[in-house]
């Protein structure tokens, strides 16, 4: 399925936004401004932008630890800068700086955030999927209509994360109950240093889903059109109550596991081969060759994104740190915990 000209333009812009977002994060992580560990998604923009594009604002999104792209695109324009300032540990951060890179969530946009324990969100997502399933079954307020669509839940999980027992428990339950979940398996070939073929028996990881009799696919995760098409189909099934889908997106992370990892475990030339398959490059080519966009139009898009990103960075740098005592807030919903 080819996207319309406008839509391809839009998602190209989304991908450029991710790329530039990540590059700035990397810069400030490297120079010590951003604390903690940072996992960058450069090279994987299509799988993130495509999945978010295929979903509604009201669908639940569970980004993974390499999820800045899905995170920033999930939030509406006005809160995207707060996603970045969260990573900078600032009071203006969308979670007031208490979470950081691994824990940027925006419940209003149904970005449900990540949990640092790999595989944890893969079971939490059962619950968001269960919510509309339950409300509809019980004809709760707003859910009386027989033909009302379920809310879809999309969970991102890496090839390595598939090793966790939670993945099995989740797919087993989702498939038994036909829960509206899309398992977005981002196969970027490595879990830290370990190639997926060294820790899993399958040639393609989507084979795993077939063991549950769940529709399971492997697609080129760098082809944004393919990503959107397959995800839209999965979302359609999920909304109608036809159950989960597993999609393996084949892609590659250009950086090491975390910002600063030299990634010495990769064979020579592998990175370069994948860089040639850059999702932005591919899309740009299509925009120009198939849809007739000009170099100038693309430059204008890039400049616009640049301005936007620089706005986020400025905002992040200028925002103050949170108050130390605010660390005591919300341990419990209904009671205070003693501070200093």
């Amino acid at each position, binding site marked *: 399925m080819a996207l319309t000209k406008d839509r391809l333009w839009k998602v190209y812009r989304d991908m450029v936004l991710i790329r530039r977002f990540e590059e700035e994060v990397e810069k400030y992580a490297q120079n010590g401004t951003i604390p903690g560990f940072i996992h960058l998604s450069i090279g994987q923009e299509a799988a993130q932008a495509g999945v978010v594009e295929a979903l509604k604002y009201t669908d639940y999104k569970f980004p993974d630890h390499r999820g800045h792209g899905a995170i920033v695109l999930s939030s509406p324009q006005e809160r995207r800068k707060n996603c970045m300032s969260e990573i900078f540990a600032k009071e203006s951060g969308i*979670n*007031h700086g*208490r*979470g950081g890179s691994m*824990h940027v*969530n925006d*419940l209003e946009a149904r970005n*449900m*955030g990540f*949990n*640092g*324990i790999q595989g*944890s969100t*893969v*079971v*939490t*997502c*059962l*619950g*968001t*999927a*269960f*919510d509309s399933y*339950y409300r509809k*079954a*019980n004809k*709760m307020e707003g859910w009386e209509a027989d033909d009302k669509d379920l809310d879809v839940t999309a969970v991102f999980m890496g090839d390595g994360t598939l090793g966790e*027992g*939670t993945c099995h*428990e*989740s797919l*087993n*339950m989702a498939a*038994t109950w036909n829960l509206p979940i899309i398992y977005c398996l981002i196969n970027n070939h490595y879990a830290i240093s370990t190639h997926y073929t060294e820790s899993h028996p399958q040639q393609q990881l989507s084979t795993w889903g077939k063991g549950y009799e769940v529709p399971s696919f492997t697609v080129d995760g760098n082809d944004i059109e393919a990503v959107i098409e397959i995800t839209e189909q999965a979302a359609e099934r999920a909304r109608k109550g036809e159950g989960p889908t597993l999609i393996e997106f084949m892609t590659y992370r250009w950086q090491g596991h975390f910002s600063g990892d030299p990634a010495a475990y990769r064979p020579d030339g592998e990175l370069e081969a994948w860089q040639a398959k850059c999702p932005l490059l591919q899309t740009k080519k299509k925009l120009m060759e198939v849809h007739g966009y000009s170099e100038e139009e693309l430059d204008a898009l890039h400049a616009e994104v640049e301005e936007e990103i620089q706005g986020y960075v400025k905002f992040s740098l200028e925002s103050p740190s949170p108050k130390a005592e605010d660390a005591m*807030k*919300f*341990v*419990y*919903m*209904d*009671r205070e*915990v003693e501070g200093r």
Partner: protein
Amino acid sequence: MTRKLSFSGAINEALHQEMERDETVFILGEDVAKMGGDFGITKGIWEKWPNRAYDTALSEQAILGLCNGAAVCGLKPVAELMFADFVGVCYDQLINNAAKLCYMYDGQASAQIVVRAVTGGGIRCAYHHSQCIEPWLMNIPGLVIVAPSNAYEAKGLLVGSIRNQNPVVFLEHKLLYNTKSEVPEELYDIELYKAKVVKEGSDITIVAAMTMMAFAEKAAKELEKEGISVEIINPLTIFPLDKETIVDSVAKTGRLVVVQEGPKVMGYAAELGAMVVEDIFEYLKAPLKRVTSLDVPVPFAPVQEDYVLPHYDDVIKACHEVMAF
């Protein structure tokens, strides 16, 4: 006049009544729906609300994960862990997800879930079906642990737990299921975070929960005859502890005996002991005494299980010792 109801009947009634009142409450777990629970606690719910009672696979991580996610959307799940010992396989979902969700979501949402867990020894089921799990969870801010000792408390505390906005592990001691007490027919809830002064007294404070309450009450009577006045405190919410009530009591009596079913080492008696020696050292008249299980896995052979679990005589002995000090 209120009727007498069993501990298990009281829990069942609490679920029925609160589910009647609040359509966001639902139950899930292994065999909780069609069978009504391995211990029969959830009987009749599936028949009444087939879409609000879910039999699951043996997937405790998925069960708790589902609870956490559903709670964030505004549902109120009540899950059953057939045996509390199984917390081991879903520990991460409790401590790193449920307990931290409110914090991670910066107060925008929390894991308002109840995990009913069947706890304790005494039925000759050995290592993996007899443990007291509260100490495994008490180092985790964000969690709540509730432990009723009779049917009246069970009903009110379960309702209070369902309404509490935080993740609650609700401990049901299997030896209590058949015990009876007076239970109002109407729906009521008991406030969490409040310890109950079961009996006032002036010489010794005994803190006990669940089945150990029976030891405490019997001991208080026996000691009363000797002129020793015992104050009994039931924490009810084991975590976070109602520090004030407990500390005030020990400040008054000057003597603390904790009767706890689980092993001694790092049981909740340890926290109680530390609390008093930290906060009211000057009021203490005698050493802490911990009457507990021995520090071993719970063995199967009845003579051995009985040897390992706390002995009533040791409560009396401990009280005599603190008085004689």
